[in-house]
């Protein structure tokens, strides 16, 4: 238990450091690398929390694909951030601080982490998902059962989110730009 906590603390402080570094850096190549690192750290955190499915996704998407996409994007744009006016960073800071404050405020009454008597643990859902699942679906991996069947509709929604993202990118960038207009106009 204590090693868990120690690991948690280490991972979280690393994440904080990486986050700050990302915010400070102006050169975007290291930023892309650091976001990959950040994802890897959070994947580790998810593993510690026994959320292996999530960790797997995070590692593959966050640390892998996203970084590649970032790098591909730098091929299209500049890889150095333009200086942002002070006023806008101030607004950003205020929003962040405020959000953080509310989050901390909220955490004051949160049920204790890992406690057995939290609302989530006491809700009949938990029993149902963990016990009845073998009668109803009979799949050893409850996560798959919940995501695929009990909340299959959500998963369908998420697939559609991915699909939408694909359509969006294809629509905006996918088809090579034709440039007939300019020459046509000139001919006119």
């Amino acid at each position: 238990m204590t090693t868990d906590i120690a690991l948690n603390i280490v991972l979280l402080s690393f994440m904080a450091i990486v986050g700050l570094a990302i915010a400070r850096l102006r050169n975007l190549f290291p930023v892309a690398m650091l976001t990959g690192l950040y994802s890897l750290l959070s994947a580790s955190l998810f593993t510690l929390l026994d959320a292996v499915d999530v960790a797997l996704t995070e590692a593959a998407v966050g640390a892998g694909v996203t970084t590649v996409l970032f790098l591909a994007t730098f091929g299209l744009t500049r890889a150095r951030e333009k200086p942002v006016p002070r006023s806008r960073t101030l607004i950003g800071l205020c929003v962040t601080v405020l959000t953080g404050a509310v989050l901390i405020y909220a955490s004051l009454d949160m049920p204790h982490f890992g406690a057995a008597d939290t609302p989530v643990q006491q809700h009949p859902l938990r029993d149902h998902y963990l016990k009845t699942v073998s009668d109803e679906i009979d799949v050893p991996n409850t996560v798959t059962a919940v995501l695929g069947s009990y909340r299959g509709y959500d998963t369908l929604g998420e697939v559609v989110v991915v699909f939408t993202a694909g359509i969006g990118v294809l629509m905006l960038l996918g088809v090579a730009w034709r440039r007939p207009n300019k020459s046509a106009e000139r001919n006119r």
Partner: protein
Amino acid sequence: MREHTVLRVVTKLLIAPIILFALYVQFHGDYSPGGGFQAGVVFAAAIILYALIFGLAEARRAVSPNLLRITGALGALIFAGTGVYAMLRGGNFLDYDYLAHDAIHGQHYGLLLVEFGVGLTVVSVITSIFYVFAGRGRRNDDEQPPGDAR
């Protein structure tokens, strides 16, 4: 990077296990962590890796963007279609109980189909997005904005 022999060899060695792992994650999701999403991403990572090392053109020849467009749509259709099929069999949308002669089997078929749909869409979409980004090259600022390309 086509000149880096080491990379090419290592990649060739790696891609098959990656794909195998993806398939494992895909079809073993019922028993161990994983499922369509994870499998899709891992599979896409294999294709992307291939494209990074052997070049985009090669990758496109192997997995054409047109195919990805179709499989991406098909994935979503398979998922939703499974639900509709359950509907046609008399159940509610996505009620896998109705897919087979008994409920448990139905659930198993349902999960298998649905996860396959998820995987298909995810791998297609992620690969397409990569293709699009990697394939664009540097743009000039005087180019036509989207939509105005009429």
